């Protein structure tokens, strides 16, 4: 291929790209810990790992969005410095982001030409661009109409435009950040066809995903990251779902403390055939059946984005069900508002705590009364009772060990762990019958994590039925009496504490149903 040099940047062929000993620190987090990674021309190299494993950070370094604290990037054996995405593009590195970078009100051809010099400045040369788009779509099987407006295109088509954009710029190495997350299975097949054509032409591809079957289908090599460190790098021929799952999640599981036996009570939260749709109107939950008894913790394990968020929202009255019923202490609560649910004894710790759980410009006290500001003793009639609020907040701050200069401190100056303790304090203060806790310790320091775990276990002693949703498998294993695994909106299986091995759970998280001896949903 030799495109018109006026249209495109001169081609930079990347025969071999290597990232060597990359270290990236954020305040309080080691996002990449001496990571080595390389990719050769004509190969698909997959970067695999759980959320927060450091995949995105590594790729953002490669694309110039972040700078590494230590380590080198070498192209064809030569050290290069990538200070910005425009440096990366000049070197022949392209990236397809999860969120597309297209201008919806422009046509496909205009989007492709955006930011490039026209061959007849100052006029546009859209005919020439369109012709080249046609050529590229022929070669790579990317069906797109250059004259269509981007806002009219389906998600899959928009992704094809993004790929064409990079091909038009003659990118030699392409990073695809979870490209299949938004696609239907048919579109995934088409995409893979395109990717194979690209590697056949000598492009290098870095594929980021956590869907094991796709990874196995498309990659030549697989590198696994965990907690910012390299776990290993293997050719796809040697990889199986089992060993990949183990590499992803298979650290030594430490049962932090023996769980005390609790007398299990009546079912307090029961889900029968619950289905719901996501914000994108696709199926998010299909026929979920769960039962949690008083004094029991049910852990929901699974790779994120498999319906956990919607499950929590459906129970908390924040998302309508399309079918099924939810019983809270034998009352059908489907369709109830948030307020009535709280009055019925439901407490909810949302996963996005800064967005959904607290108000960062409110004070500590104002946040502590978020749900109960309109009931005694916090208010009488329409007037807030500041003395009662101050007294009660003092109690909560002390008993939940929230470290804050004062009640009047605005929330945003507290640490993540203390904000989460504040939310716990608010939710647990009324001794709820049912607790839904989503990612209760994500991004929280170890001390606060321990404390939060202890509180959840105390609540279990008090007879609360707890639904614990977490991407942290250690946390699930440490706290749960039973573990249900979700995959693509379904419960793949439910196993009892002690019966669960990490390998089995890892397989179930990849969508493999358990063997008959395990209890099935």
């Amino acid at each position: 291929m030799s495109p018109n040099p006026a249209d495109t940047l001169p081609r930079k062929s990347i025969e071999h790209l290597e990232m060597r000993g990359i270290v990236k620190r954020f305040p309080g987090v080691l996002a990449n810990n001496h990571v080595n990674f390389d990719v050769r021309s004509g190969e698909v190299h997959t970067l695999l790992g759980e959320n927060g494993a450091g995949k995105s950070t590594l790729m953002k370094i490669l694309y110039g969005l972040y700078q590494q604290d230590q380590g080198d990037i070498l192209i064809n054996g030569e050290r290069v410095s990538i200070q910005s995405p425009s440096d990366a593009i000049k070197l022949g590195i392209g990236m397809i982001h999860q969120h597309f970078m297209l201008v919806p009100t422009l046509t496909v051809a205009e989007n492709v030409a955006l930011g490039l010099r026209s061959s007849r400045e100052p006029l546009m040369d859209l005919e020439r661009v369109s012709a080249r788009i046609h050529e590229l779509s022929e070669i790579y099987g990317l069906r797109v109409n250059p004259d269509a407006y981007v806002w009219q295109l389906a998600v899959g088509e928009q992704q094809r435009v993004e790929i064409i954009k990079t091909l038009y710029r003659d990118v030699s190495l392409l990073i695809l950040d979870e490209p299949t997350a938004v696609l239907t299975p048919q579109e995934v097949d088409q995409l893979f066809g395109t990717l194979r054509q690209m590697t056949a032409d000598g492009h290098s591809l870095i594929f980021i995903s956590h869907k094991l079957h796709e990874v196995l289908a498309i990659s030549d090599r697989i590198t696994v990251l965990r907690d910012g460190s390299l776990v290993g790098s293997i050719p796809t021929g040697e990889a199986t779902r089992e060993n990949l799952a183990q590499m992803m999640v298979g650290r030594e599981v430490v049962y932090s403390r023996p769980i005390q036996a609790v007398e299990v009570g009546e079912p307090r939260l029961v889900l029968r055939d619950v289905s719901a749709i996501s914000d994108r109107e696709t199926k998010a939950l299909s026929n979920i059946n769960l039962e949690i008894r008083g004094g029991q913790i049910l852990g929901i394990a699974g790779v994120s984005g498999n319906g956990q968020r919607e499950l929590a929202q459906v129970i908390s009255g924040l998302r309508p069900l399309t079918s099924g019923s939810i019983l809270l202490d034998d009352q059908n609560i489907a369709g109830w508002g948030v307020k009535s649910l709280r009055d019925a004894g439901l407490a909810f710790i949302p996963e996005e705590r800064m967005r959904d759980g607290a108000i960062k410009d409110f004070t500590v006290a104002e946040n502590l009364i978020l749900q109960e500001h309109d009931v005694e003793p916090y208010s009488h009639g329409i007037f807030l009772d500041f003395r009662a609020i101050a007294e009660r907040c003092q109690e909560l701050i002390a008993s939940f060990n929230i470290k804050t200069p004062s009640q009047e401190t605005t929330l945003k100056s507290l640490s993540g762990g203390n904000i989460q303790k504040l939310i716990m304090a608010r939710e647990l203060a009324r001794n709820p019958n049912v607790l839904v806790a989503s990612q209760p310790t994500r991004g929280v320091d170890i001390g606060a994590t321990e404390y939060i775990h202890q509180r959840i276990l105390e609540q279990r002693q008090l007879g609360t039925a707890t639904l614990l949703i977490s991407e942290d498998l250690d946390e699930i294993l440490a706290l749960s009496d039973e573990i249900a695994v979700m995959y693509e909106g379904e419960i793949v299986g439910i196993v009892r504490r002690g019966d669960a091995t990490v390998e089995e759970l890892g397989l179930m998280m990849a969508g493999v149903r358990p063997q008959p001896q395990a209890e099935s949903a």
Partner: protein
Amino acid sequence: MSSQPVIKSRLEGVLLRLLPLFAVLLAFLVGAVMLFALGANPLTAYLALLNGAFGSVNALAETTVKAIPLLLVGIGITISFRAKVINIGGEGQMVVGALAATAVALAFPDLPPIAMIPLTLLAGFVTGGLYGALPGALKAYFQVNEILSTIMLNIVAVQAMNFLLRGIMIDPQQAELGARIPQTMRLPASADLPILIRGTRLHAGVLIALLAAVAVYILLWRTTLGYRIRAVGLNPDASRYAGIHVKRYVVLALTLSGAFAGLAGAILVFGSESHRMVTDGSTTGFTGSAGFNGIVAALFGGLHPIGTIPASFLFGALLVGANKLQRVAQVPSALITALNGLVVVFVVSIENWRNRRVAARIAARISVDSEPDALLESSDTAGATTLGTK
């Protein structure tokens, strides 16, 4: 951390708070250039302005009278902006409030003052509120942008005003004369707002406005209603998760905002010298742009009802002092409008700059805390700073 940066940071905090006054000075500086270009001595001109606004009891009374509608509109704006609802419809809400209050006074001319005054003011309050509720409901339930709808409703209101003041509400004398100036007859004296200082125009509206400002302060910071309005404005997601009906409070905030503008409109009629509702066919002809200037007063007052009191007084002083300036310096009246405009432009742009500065200060403080959570929240800024330091 050594003490010097702390002091520096404190000082910066104080300076940031004083910025609005700085903006006024800057506007005056540019105004001085304009005055100079017109051949007037800026110093004399500004002294005339000061004298006109504060120089005598009458000047102070006039300044206060001008401040009343600004304060009432401003506290309403404070409520809506606290709920993150942008109300640009103060003008229209003033007009409909005034129309309703005037209609009540015309319909029941025999009521004694004790019944007349509360009833007319209530009519203005309620009608202004309903006129605010409309765009509020459109925003909450049909996702109609409230900036657009409130501006459009201003246009509807002015046409309704012209229709009524030239039609059924017109002064019979005007109809007879055939002059058809859009104004009502002299309204019943029982509706007149009592004059507080004999010989001036200072009327009881100022007491109502001050009381209203205190009431709005209590509403926003002492009641569950105000708590929810502020919660919805600061974080609608968390509010929804906490069981607050977000849409309901969006509507309520715009309703209250409109209500105070409506009250301002009513007071403008019954506190006026002519004791009638009169216009020149435009909204400004009736409101004197108080519906817009009230927004500036509210922003100037830090979106706090108590802060809006001095802010309204300042803008009232500008309006009154400008007349004197015009007479003394012999400059075209357009210059006065330009000067007012300059103050608004400088205050608003400095306000934006200040908000960004304050946000940056907060971001800096969070990154010092070195918490992974703060990082998640401001990952973009984190990326930007690392880019910058390398």
